[in-house]
């Protein structure tokens, strides 16, 4: 029981500690192509590379809110990784093979937006 409480506090404490150190952090917005919830999962999963704290992609606006540590990675690196998964952005074209393998609903070049 006691150990449980200590563990609980430790988790909270370590999380907030990490938060306090997080000076080196920026949030930026990028347009990334995609259509559906499947794309959302793909884009966000691809965005989580080392140094990325959070990635939220909005399927209605195509906006990717990207929070990362500039000391560890760059937006360009993240967008390249996303493009490798088949989703392109203004600066990085999608990988041709990856695009072809996208789930049906993500084929943004043909259908455009719903």
């Amino acid at each position, binding site marked *: *029981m006691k150990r449980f409480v200590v563990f609980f506090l430790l988790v909270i404490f370590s999380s907030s500690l990490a938060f306090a150190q997080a000076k080196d952090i920026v949030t930026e917005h990028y347009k990334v192509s995609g259509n559906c919830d499947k794309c959302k999962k793909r884009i966000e999963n691809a965005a989580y590379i080392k140094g990325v704290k959070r990635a939220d992609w909005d399927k209605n606006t195509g906006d990717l809110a990207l929070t990362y540590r500039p000391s560890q990675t760059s937006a360009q690196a993240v967008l390249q990784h996303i493009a490798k998964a088949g989703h392109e952005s203004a600066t990085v074209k999608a990988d041709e093979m990856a695009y072809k393998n996208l789930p049906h609903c993500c084929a943004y070049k043909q259908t455009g937006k719903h």
Partner: protein
Amino acid sequence: MMIYRNKLLLSSWCLLAGISAFAQTDSAQTKKLKEVIIKQQMSTTRTSLLKPMKVDEIGKGELLKAACCNLSESFETTPSVDVAFTDAVSGYKQVQMLGLAGPYTLITRENIPDVRGVASITGLTYTPGMWIEGMQLSKGTGSVVNGYESVAGQINIELLKPFEDDKLLLNLYQNTQGRSEGNLYGRKEFNEHLSTGLFVHGSSQWLKVDQNSDGFLDQPLNKQFILLNRWFYQAPKGWEFQAGIKGVYSSNTGGQWGYSSGGEQVTGRPWGYELNTKRAEGWAKIGKIFPQQKATSIGLQLSGVYHDQDAHFGPRIYDATQKSLYANLIFQTIINNTNHVIKGGLSTVLDDYNERFETMPLLRTEVVPGAFVEYAYNYLDKFNAVVGLRGDYDNLYGAFITPRLHLRYAPFKKTAIRASIGRAQRTANVLAENMGYMASSRGFAFPVSGSVFNLRPEIAWNFGLNLTQKFRLNYRDGAIGVDYYDTHFQNQVVADVEQPGQVSFYNLVGKSYAHSLQAQLDYELIHNLGMRLAYRWYQVMTDYTSGLKEKPLVAANRAFANFGYETNNNWKFDYTIQWVGPKRLPASYNTGSYYSPSFVQMNAQISKAFKNNLEVYVGGENLTNYMQRTPILGAGDPYGKDFDASMIWGPVMGRNIYAGIRYAIK
């Protein structure tokens, strides 16, 4: 692309989704029911901030964390529900919410009452986990639309729908304790209107296991076969029909190692347990949305159950037949706008019980027609109130009214405070609900034998207060939930085991209450590593003839932690650890009342999904191999007065390693 089906109408009608549901109905109508459905992938458990009642949505991902086997095991990662063995012979488990036994929770299948009556305990095993699309769990008295019975809460189970998701599912499971299981599911859409789903389940416990060497099988040999077929018909002009049938065949043989089916039950021969069940169910739902009148719909739910079981616990025979019919007609509309939603309707429950325990026949035919009305008010996203009232007439116990009130207030965007108060009434099925005590030499003592034992219906008031706070810390989402529930019984059918060798049933004289406090924290520690920590505390007290005492075999304290990690290449790791506090044991012939030791249990599972839709999983339950050493008192002389297999406070079975596959055709 999928055609939008307004499954809302039939499946979520009665679920208090209220406001959010109506928003959907609106859009469905304006877009003439032709809309791409974008399904929110709900993988694990979520609690909405918007619904007027606190509802934990338990998704498929959560259910898959416990690979085996049926509803009673589906709650292993849900801190709100305790799961415990009813006795050391039958192998059945029962769920417990707010410190109250399983039958106090209303368990519905797509909002039709399902696990009740003679199947109050055994019924949990009739829904294999793989058939379930999701569950909604709410504590406290729910909506009056679903009846007057729910004292502790409601668990609603949604089965897989024949017009969405995987076309074929195959699941095979094997564990080291000799249990094999197979599930097969297939669906077919004939056209955009008509679809059907077929569910098949077969399982067997074929190996005799006695890990504690007391001469009794830890769980009976078992064969179970379940078949379910459902149909959906989406007709033009807002009509929708669905129907289903389900058949269950289950056979259990357990008890002492040497017992074989049909063996004579006299001193000197092996003590045996058998429970053979045949059950058939049928249900239908008919619904219509009126496209002209906004958010107006009418629906009828019908169901019928035939349940027949033959059982004996040693020389004690328990045979039961139940025939039940249920009808619920619901009309809903709005006043001016969707901020004022009104539901009203009529319902009838008919239960016919024919039971025989030892030499005593027990018959009960109960018919309860009723009417209800519920008004839901919504002010922006800030405030909700749901006021419900129903009046029912019970042919045995007379008329009664059931008022219920639910309030929700959201002072901030990520905060919801909810309160609820309500009355619940139910007629106890004394034998079925206390079947565990049959696995003992305890004499069953009733106030007066006869048709209803002179026992009155159970009446309880439940009051609840809860807080849900979502937060984002260090760019990751989390939620804190704290809830407090207080159940007060005005009358209760007390099962008193304080006197050795006896279980007496009588109407409550004095007080009986259950206080429940739970705190839960969900947080994503690092990307894709989810954590859930929970602690809950119960105080369940009842006035027995021997005085006010803590209810036996209920752990006042329980702590729980679950960690789930998912990699990008589809590996999943899940780990649950829980600490269960001491439980009070009533006095036996040899000992006074004492407390059981607390114990720790661990479960873990690893699964890997491959590209070709094959998923393989391996896991272990009760990894600490902690067992209650002597689950059966007087095991050496099962026909003697000391024999008692119902005093179960800990795991009866030791470590269990399992493996299985799931294969899907999308």
